[in-house]
């Protein structure tokens, strides 16, 4: 069965009426739980550069109907209550006797070998749990026996999503309840659990057969963050800060937005924005977001129906926005070569791209392959120096050996110049303006990368030498060290490793970086980006105009660090390589900016975010955006740009620098003057 149908079926079963999903006039009970999902994570705001830096606070998410009675006109107002409860408060003894690790069969439970905690503690935990859940229960509780009896009459279907195999399947409660006790080794403790559940009493609403108690569900689902995924969360659990229970009336929120970040559209983030621009991001790492989308969609239809009933006005619709954002790039929006060009493998590189003398004859093919498919990791050390212009594509093995020798010597000369050729005054000045800052920064760069971690790491020392030497190398040109350079250097050093080779790669890298730009270069780049936004994303451009946000504050870090802090490292390196390939454009970084805006800025316009809110919006998306998708989208947008019949003269520079291949032989867009200020000259007139 296609997944959509399964979801539909599952939701309709959950909603209690199999046919209701087809119609809009379904009936919701008050306090009905429409959705529940375990291991929905909150990530406390931390300085996270990499996935492993992110602290996960797994919790239990529920979505429950609620009817509020308006105090002014006594009108009933149905709404949804979204509640997230941290696992820590749900089930504190999870490590000892309640952990169920979900594997492909989602049936095996973990034997931790830990003793069972005392009953007293358990009771206290259960009381905590009950107190936490009280608002959800609507004040009504009942014993598990009642529920069991109910279950026999009315088999409840829940949607169970397994972790390793994120598919949605319908399971019956009695079965999945059984899965707690399947492990014979754990029988005794599980019985203990059950006993606990019985004696402590779970909650149930007699009047509502579809009501599932959170306790039961809590037991049913895996409550702890699985050890499999990098295992960092468990280590960090002791962190002082805690994410507390979070509960909101969704009708009070400004927007709800679902971002899917996997191809199957099951995992991603639910972003809730309150009217005062407070954001809550809930992470669905293990699927289930598609199901929530379905539930919300049905609820939306249901509400919509109410709102459109006679006598009521449309603006009473409590949900201002409910948007599902499936960041997909449609086939028609993609570059036609997308997917047809494979990653460069070692065999392809040495077998096809290099000739017997070691020259790369068809550098366009190499650049095209890097642009679309990237490089095998082991080739980075070999190919990056070409891309970063350490040596030319036409150089032979011999040429390169010779050149590297010369360059190594030159590097040594720079080092000795730094040590011995500066006057005492120069040294003092150098120490004050460069060295003291570099020394502080290298130990604050990519610390989570094992290559740089720890005190007295020799690689940190190499990074320092390269940066200091770079400042000496450029001493007379006025460029020295600028903060952020170390961020760009670190991944190169990590791959190339050899100090002198890394240095020369870094020199090439800085040629294309913002650090060595004059203010007017930066203005030029930003104005290109503005123009690209104007012609490619006019709605966003209008938004920027309205808020006088033309300085594009939110893009600055993207450009400065070439997206290093916006995406996880693996995908950032793909982006860098795509930029370095200079395929079709020298300004691929600007198309990456465009792609991010195209994919993730709908919300900015819909919620009419101001300049600072925009900055918040995009910085909260850092490390959570789908980089592969952005790459596809950027390549697609570059393709669209190249198809434009006319481009404004303000973007003429964007094409001028590009080598052959920017425009197809049969297509060359016309340049059109868009008008200028008095003190500006049209580039067309100057040429």
């Amino acid at each position: 069965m296609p997944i959509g149908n399964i979801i539909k079926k599952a939701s309709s079963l959950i909603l209690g009426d199999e046919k209701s999903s087809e119609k809009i006039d379904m009936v919701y009970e008050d306090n009905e739980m429409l959705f529940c999902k375990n291991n929905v994570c909150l990530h406390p705001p931390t300085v996270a550069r990499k996935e492993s830096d992110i602290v996960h606070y797994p919790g239990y998410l529920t979505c429950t109907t609620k009817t509020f009675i308006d105090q002014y006109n006594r009108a009933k107002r149905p709404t949804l209550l979204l509640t997230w409860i941290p696992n820590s408060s749900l089930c504190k003894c999870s490590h000892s006797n309640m952990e169920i690790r979900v594997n492909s069969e989602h049936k095996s439970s973990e034997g931790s070998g830990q003793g069972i905690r005392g009953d007293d503690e358990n009771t206290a935990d259960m009381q905590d749990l009950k107190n936490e859940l009280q608002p959800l229960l609507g004040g009504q509780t009942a014993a598990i026996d009642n529920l069991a009896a109910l279950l026999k009459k009315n088999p409840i279907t829940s949607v169970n999503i397994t972790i390793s195999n994120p598919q949605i399947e319908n399971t019956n409660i009695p079965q999945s309840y059984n899965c707690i006790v399947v492990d014979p080794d754990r029988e005794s403790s599980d019985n203990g659990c059950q006993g606990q559940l019985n004696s402590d009493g779970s909650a149930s609403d007699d009047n509502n057969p579809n009501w599932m108690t959170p306790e039961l569900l809590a037991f049913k689902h895996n409550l702890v963050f699985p050890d499999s995924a990098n295992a960092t969360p468990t280590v960090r659990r002791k962190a002082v800060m805690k994410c507390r229970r979070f509960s909101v009336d969704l009708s009070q929120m400004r927007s709800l937005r679902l971002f899917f970040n996997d191809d199957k559209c099951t995992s991603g983030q639910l972003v809730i924005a309150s009217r005062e621009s407070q954001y809550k991001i809930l992470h669905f790492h293990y699927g289930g977001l598609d199901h929530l989308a379905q539930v919300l969609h049905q609820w939306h239809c249901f509400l919509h129906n109410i709102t459109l009933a006679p006598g009521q006005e449309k603006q009473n619709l409590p949900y201002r926005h409910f948007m599902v954002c499936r960041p997909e790039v449609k086939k028609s929006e993609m570059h036609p070569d997308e997917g047809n060009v494979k990653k460069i493998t070692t065999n392809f590189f040495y077998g096809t791209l290099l000739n017997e003398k070691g020259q790369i004859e068809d550098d366009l093919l190499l650049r095209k392959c890097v642009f679309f498919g990237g490089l095998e990791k082991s080739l980075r050390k070999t190919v990056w120096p070409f891309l970063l212009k350490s040596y030319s594509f036409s150089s032979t093995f011999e040429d390169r050996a010779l050149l590297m020798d010369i360059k190594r010597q030159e590097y040594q000369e720079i080092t000795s110049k730094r040590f011995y050729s500066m006057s005492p005054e120069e040294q003092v000045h150098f120490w004050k303006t460069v060295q003291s800052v570099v020394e502080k920064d290298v130990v604050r760069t990519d610390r989570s990368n094992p290559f740089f971690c720890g005190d007295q790491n020799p690689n940190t020392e190499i990074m320092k030498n390269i940066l200091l030497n770079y400042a000496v190398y450029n001493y007379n040109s006025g460029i020295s060290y600028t903060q952020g350079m170390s961020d760009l250097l670190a991944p190169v050093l990590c791959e190339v490793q050899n100090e002198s080779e890394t240095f020369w790669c870094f020199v090439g890298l800085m040629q294309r970086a913002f650090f060595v730009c004059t203010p007017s270069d930066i203005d030029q780049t930003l104005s290109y980006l503005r123009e690209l936004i104007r012609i490619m994303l006019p709605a966003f451009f209008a938004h920027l105009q309205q808020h006088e946000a033309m300085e594009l504050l939110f893009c600055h870090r993207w450009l400065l660090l070439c997206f290093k802090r916006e995406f996880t490292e693996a995908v950032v390196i793909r982006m860098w390589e795509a930029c370095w390939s200079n395929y079709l454009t020298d300004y691929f970084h600007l198309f990456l900016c465009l792609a991010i805006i195209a994919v993730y800025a709908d919300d900015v316009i819909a919620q009419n975010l101001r300049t600072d809110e925009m900055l918040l919006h995009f910085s909260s998306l850092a490390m959570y955006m789908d980089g592969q998708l952005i790459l596809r989208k950027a390549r697609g947008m570059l393709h669209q740009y190249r198809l434009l019949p006319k481009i404004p003269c303000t973007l003429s520079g964007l094409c001028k620098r590009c080598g052959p291949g920017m425009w197809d032989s049969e297509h060359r867009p016309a340049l059109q003057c868009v008008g200028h200020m008095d003190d500006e000259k049209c580039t067309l007139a100057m040429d």
Partner: protein
Amino acid sequence: MSYAYLFKYIIIGDTGVGKSCLLLQFTDKRFQPVHDLTIGVEFGARMITIDGKQIKLQIWDTAGQEAFRSITRSYYRGAAGALLVYDITRRETFNHLTTWLEDARQHSNSNMVIMLIGNKSDLDSRREVKKEEGEAFAREHGLVFMETSARTAANVEEAFINTAKEIYEKIQEGVFDINNEANGIKIGPQASPTNPSLPGSGGAAGAANSGCC
């Protein structure tokens, strides 16, 4: 979570004086000696209570953007408070205060409350700037002064909260026009005049009850 006011702060000062650490200590109550260099702007937020009123502090920690210097001055725009930080163990960070202050005064609104912070007070043995010097500088330029330690958390709460108190007093005195968001103050959703016809404005029972920020 509802609040009466939202104040925007910025943290400025030389690199490595402990800006991000101060922020982390204030928002998360922890000290992280090893962290990555701040580039651009990072945000922190915390609720505090002054005079029985909930106030949300939204703190902008900015650094490392020399390349965009001409533009990033707009970070000052709409800030109600600024923490100007130097490192008591490095004289030059104190010497640069004048430049920072000029920058701040030039690009912010004139009512912005500036708190001078001498950080790393736990490293007294390596002290290069006397407390009296900090006090004198603050007096001379009309700033509030405090020595803090992001490591031990000494005075960190006080630094942020005293700044907020000062802003709050200015609001009470009518110095700040709270309806002009360029002053870095926003009125919270609770205090703003609500429209009773808006759906759910009476339904406080289900109102936001958020845990973090």
